[in-house]
């Protein structure tokens, strides 16, 4: 229906799907983390696209223009910033976990790692 006019939202949803399936189904830890980043950034893209209004500018008062009609909605931008901070810290934690896993098991494959840690426990 409005697929062509809302192409940014469409792209965001496609990206979300890609990121989601990569995070859920990929066995390689690094690719999982990349998937997570794509998924979160897709949501931020969606949010930013929702805050934008065609033909308006960022809400910074220039030349004394105070009318609401001149500006886009700034709240989504603020939310995106908060979200990015959260997403970055989660990525950092996941990467540090991956480093520790790799040092211990010398592989990035989560299925292999799980099998190896079970064996280790049975000994």
């Amino acid at each position, binding site marked *: 229906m409005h697929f062509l006019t809302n192409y940014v939202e469409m792209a965001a949803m496609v990206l979300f799907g890609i990121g989601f399936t990569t995070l859920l189904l990929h066995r390689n830890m690094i690719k999982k983390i990349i998937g997570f980043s794509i998924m979160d950034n897709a949501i931020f893209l*969606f949010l930013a696209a929702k805050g934008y209004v065609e033909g308006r500018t960022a809400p910074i008062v220039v030349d004394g223009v105070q009318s609401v009609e001149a500006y886009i909605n700034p*709240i989504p931008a603020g939310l995106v910033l908060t979200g990015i901070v*959260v997403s970055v*810290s989660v990525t950092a*934690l996941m990467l540090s*976990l991956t480093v520790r896993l790799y040092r211990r098991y010398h592989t990035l494959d989560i299925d292999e*790692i*799980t099998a190896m*840690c079970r064996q*280790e426990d049975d000994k």
Partner: protein
Amino acid sequence: MALELWQSIPFACILLPLGSAAATSVMKPRIARWWTVTVLVVVTALSGIITWQFWQGAAHYTYMMGHFPAPWGNEIRAGQLEALTALFFALIMLLSLLGGLKKLDEHIDPNKVGLYYVVILLMTAALMAQVYTNDIFTAYVFLEIMTLAACALIAIRRRGRTLVAATRYMIMNLIGSGLFLLGIVILYDLTGHLLMEDIRTAVKEIAATGQYSQPLTVVVALIAIGLCIKSALFPFHTWVPDAYGFSTPTSSAVLSSLVSKGYIFLLIKIMYRVIGLDVIAATRIGDVLFVFALVGMVMGSISALRQTDVRRMTAFSSVAQIGYIYLGMGLGTDAGMMAAMFHLFSHAVCKSMLFLAAGGLADASGNSKQFRDLRGAGYRSPIAGVAFTIGALSMVGFPFLGGFVSKLNIALAALEVGGVRSLLVLLVLAVSTWLNTMYFLRTVITLYRKPLEGASYPVEKGRRGFCFNAALVLFALQNVMLGLWSQTVVNAIVEGLSTFG
């Protein structure tokens, strides 16, 4: 309206642990321990005061954060239910930490013990914020803080198994947060508000016009499934046994009885205050939760029955008990919600005690959690044995204990609904109780049987300590009191729910 001093308590309950978490990171472990325990005692006492105020009939209120009034600023909202939940959470956090203190030095790298207290304080701050916040995006941010802190709680024990458990926990939880975030983003897009009560007004208008009914269903589905994954409802529980079964006892207790409950409390809050029960009922998402819960109650118990390890058994029992809570929520009535809230409390109080007691029993049996080694452990560690027995009886639904009242409430709520549903609930409740009895009583009997021939247990180095015993005794008392004075708690919940929306 001028604010009274006690009305700043919710803000203090969030800020005090959050600030202390930052300060604790540079303290020596010994000082950090005392500081953390003191902060938790203070938060518990403050929550007690605010609960008392509401019990005396104070009205619920919103607390403006910063200098921007309603549609723009951030808000905290406190009422009977929030205060009661905060009190339970703070108390359980304190007792779980005290009960597991001795094991921390054993399980964690000596240089890193100080960091454990940072994580505990962060978790407390995030839980308090989750309970009191009135802004949906703030809820998301603290949800992520909870996830990160929970991951650290698991991974801090240096063992391959906990590391893998933490990674798998993170993967499932990130999927849950992603879905939840997408849900609230679409909700913001539909309504244009972030404060919960304003969203509710907008959602009412949308629902009345019948416009956007599909996006609204998608929103409810995304939020509900996201939080279900994070709180380990049945089909999404695969990360539970390793995460609860191998981390240090305090972590298991906090994860099973507080972290998952924090997510559930948020979902209840969203159902009441953001979307509204009537709109949820129209989207039929409650039915989905209902079915998952029914299956989970049976499957969780069956998995628990097959375990040979007491910690993993208790972990699988959590899956079944989370099913009970979602069952109450899935009924979609006020009575169902009341039953869910009561079970949230009784399970939180009971499961943390079970995990701590299981840790103590395993210690008295040469550090083995296997049933064959646990024979006679009830005699070797008497207080842990009694505590485990009380917890097991409560989970089974023995009268005069919390678990009995929750089961009764769930059954009554189901009867009120009538039709096929009440029949299904009663049937599954009976089957689940029977399975609970099988695996819990089997464990209790094992604890008081004669040890195997030729088994010898190393004499414990030193006593388990005063803290461990005191924590278990207090937990046991709490369980009994929750059973005996259940009507008081039920009344408080009913009154809290009536002003919750």
